[in-house]
């Protein structure tokens, strides 16, 4: 999951596949990687890719402002069964 999220951010917002350009704890806001339409694109990607639904009040930096936070957020959101399926 982490790799898919990294790859989406690298290609969509940094226009590169150079892995060194993005650290997992980087603040996407402070690094200037994220803007207001970017965050909506990111949410669209997370919803379609991981089968989750992001509520309005979950659109906060605590959930979305770094790769690490996004991974943890998606992990919390995914139903137990899909985690089990992913583990197979």
């Amino acid at each position, binding site marked *: 999951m982490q790799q898919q999220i990294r790859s989406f951010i690298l290609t969509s917002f940094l226009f590169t596949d150079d892995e060194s350009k993005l650290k997992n704890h980087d603040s996407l806001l402070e690094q200037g990687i994220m803007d207001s339409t970017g965050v909506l694109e990111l949410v669209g990607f997370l919803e379609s890719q991981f089968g989750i639904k992001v509520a309005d009040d979950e659109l906060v*930096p605590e959930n979305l402002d770094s790769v690490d936070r996004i991974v943890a957020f998606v992990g919390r959101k995914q139903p137990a069964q899909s985690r089990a399926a992913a583990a197979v």
Partner: protein
Amino acid sequence: MTSFLPLADRLQASAARTPDAEAIVHGTRRVSYGELWAQVRAVAGYLKAGGLDRGDRVAVLLENSVEYVAAYYGTLAAGGVAVGLNASARAREISAWLDHCGARVLFVAARHPDVEALRARAHTGLTVVTVDASDDGDWKRLLASAPADVVPVGPEDTAAILYTSGTTGRPKGVTLSHGNLSANNASIIQYLGLLPSDRVLNLLPFFYSYGSSVLHTHLATGATLVIENNLIYPQKTLARLADERITGFPGVPSTFALLLQAADFSKFDLGALRYLTQAGGAMPPATIQRLREALPNARLFVMYGQTEATARLTYLPPDRLDDKLGSVGVPIPGVEIEVHDETDRPVPVGVDGEVCVRGGNVMTGYFNDQPATQSVLRNGWLHTGDLGHLDADGYLYLQGRRSDMIKSGAHRISPFDIEEVIAALPEVAETAVVGIPDDVLGEAIKAVITLKPGATLDAMQVQRHCSEQLPRYKVPRTVEFATSLPRTSSGKIKRYQLAGTAAAS
């Protein structure tokens, strides 16, 4: 006609009246009028001690912040010309603006990615002052300068230059006099009915005319500006509106579209909001309706303006929103509007033509560009390039623009500027950049490219190249490759065709 009052004098008056009132709130910082005025006087003192003469240009390359305001007003107080530059621009554009206006001093954020490249421009006689919060930085030292008094100015003296969507080859610097700013400021304060008790939440960049007008009008009134620099997390913005008991909220159509799309207004106490303002392009009636339903107690002012007219030209009184839906309203106090035909004569009511305006807010011209100035300031009128008509009651309805300018979010973007950057890629034969409809931004940027024989290039390479040379909002969202670009018989690229449909590839 209102009397002439320069911006620095108005801020000084606010500071004298209510020195302890909050002027600016940014993050956890709260700066009073007294503190802000002390900073302005220190900046003015620093500039004058450094030999700044009346009319010398001072560039301010900072995001919205207390420091932006202190540097800008300090420049005005020192008799200089304040040039607010786009804080997200890169060295390529910034250098062109600095050269064009002959700036003597540049205030730049210490963390700007191009700060070293800009420092290297000392040979042009430019003094670079970096701005950060550190105790041993340029800015803190500068604030210890002996304060200076305001240099008296007249209405004809130049106050500010705003660079609008020109190209790097030919920047367009709208030149505004102290009289222009004074006149527009007074009109806006009057029709919005601004009060010292107002608290505005501002997301709009101060280096654009709309944000600039929000800044100047609220400081002149002695109101409070709460600065937020992005709308990435709409919940945070709404929480800020509630917590700070915000009374006024200006936006462009995408501001309101983003908020309505991503947040439930009813979860926040927005009872203090008494006015919303909207400019920067037509907002769809459906968005207007949803906004009014979400905030029934706030009065919504739909407005229209142009940088060349300082900021504001018309407003639609909120109680006419229903019977004049789709109109941008009537001229603000001190402004006259006519619609002219191709021969520059006024047309009858209801007939479309070019919107022409005059008033104390109309710029003195484009900086050092007489031909461009003469092309818009003719026969005593500013020719806006916008098309529209007036109805029998004098309400203005806009129908579009003559130019190819792309409107995306709060930005006006010249396609030529992006084309210039893409064309520098060795693989590219030809390129055309257009705006395509976008639900949130109004328009999104699309680039269509033809390649040289045998060359290969992918979309991501183009976007990366653009992101290194251009601010983020100018990077094309979509890149398409085509075998040829559609042209008119005279060889001009048919942009509307590229914008309307996917290019043949």
